């Protein structure tokens, strides 16, 4: 997993966290959990976004807006976002440090390969 993939995962998880905890009358508060310091997370989000290439970030934002999650793991050559079988050249390997994170050719979610895949 390269550095940009990790940043994208962190950003995706952070967006999920903020989404889960932003609605009024949300499940979290109803169960007794505190949700109070969103400013800190906004600052973390800004830091992560600043470290990702603008082109990748705009692909992330488009996918997030469309699907509510921007990343999809690859499992056995299949995009777990849309379950489309990836072209052989894409499906076999992960990408290397410095390379741009690829998008699924079918759903446009950004793909990532978990270690061991």
């Amino acid at each position: 997993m390269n550095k940009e993939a990790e940043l994208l995962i962190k950003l995706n998880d952070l967006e999920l966290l903020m989404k889960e905890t932003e609605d009024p009358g949300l499940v979290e508060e109803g169960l007794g959990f505190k949700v109070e310091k969103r400013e800190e997370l906004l600052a973390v989000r800004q830091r992560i976004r600043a470290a990702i290439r603008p082109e990748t970030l705009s692909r992330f934002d488009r996918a997030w807006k469309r699907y509510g999650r921007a990343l999809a793991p690859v499992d056995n050559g299949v995009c777990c976002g849309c379950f489309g079988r990836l072209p052989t050249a894409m499906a076999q390997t992960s990408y290397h440090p410095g390379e741009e994170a690829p998008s699924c050719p079918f759903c446009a979610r950004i793909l990532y390969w978990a270690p061991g895949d």
Partner: protein
Amino acid sequence: MAKRDAPVRPLKLTEFLRPQHIKLKLRSNSRDGVLEELVNLLPLEPRPRALLLDMLKQREKLGSTSIGKGVAIPHGRSVVVSRLMIACGRADEGVDWDSADGKPVNLFFAIAAPPIEVGNLYHPTLARVVELVRDTAVRKRLLSAADPEAFWQIVEEEGVAG
């Protein structure tokens, strides 16, 4: 023709918890240390584990996941997790978790879920854990369980909803 309701399978917490994901002697006395010990119990590779830990720490920044009475339930969704999973820990000394009642925490239930899961069980599972540990008698039993298997057995008996 009368429409027949589909049978609803009760939610069982032990579907997501294994005895090997329970640690009754947590060593850390800090919040980050306990989170790390809990995440280390889950069957994940090192990098996804580190990313999950990061997410749980971010969640704590938002506000404590302690619900008082000596219990904390760190939780969240992450793309590094492919299915819902639970890890439990116990710290006899108690750990400061910024609880609303000011009490140190002895019992920990960490819950991790993927962004989307079949059956959408994340919130019901979270709610079931909260319900389970709000029961004083159950808490006492969990605090005195002799080993992870005994702890798991209590969750197996009590952690059913539906």
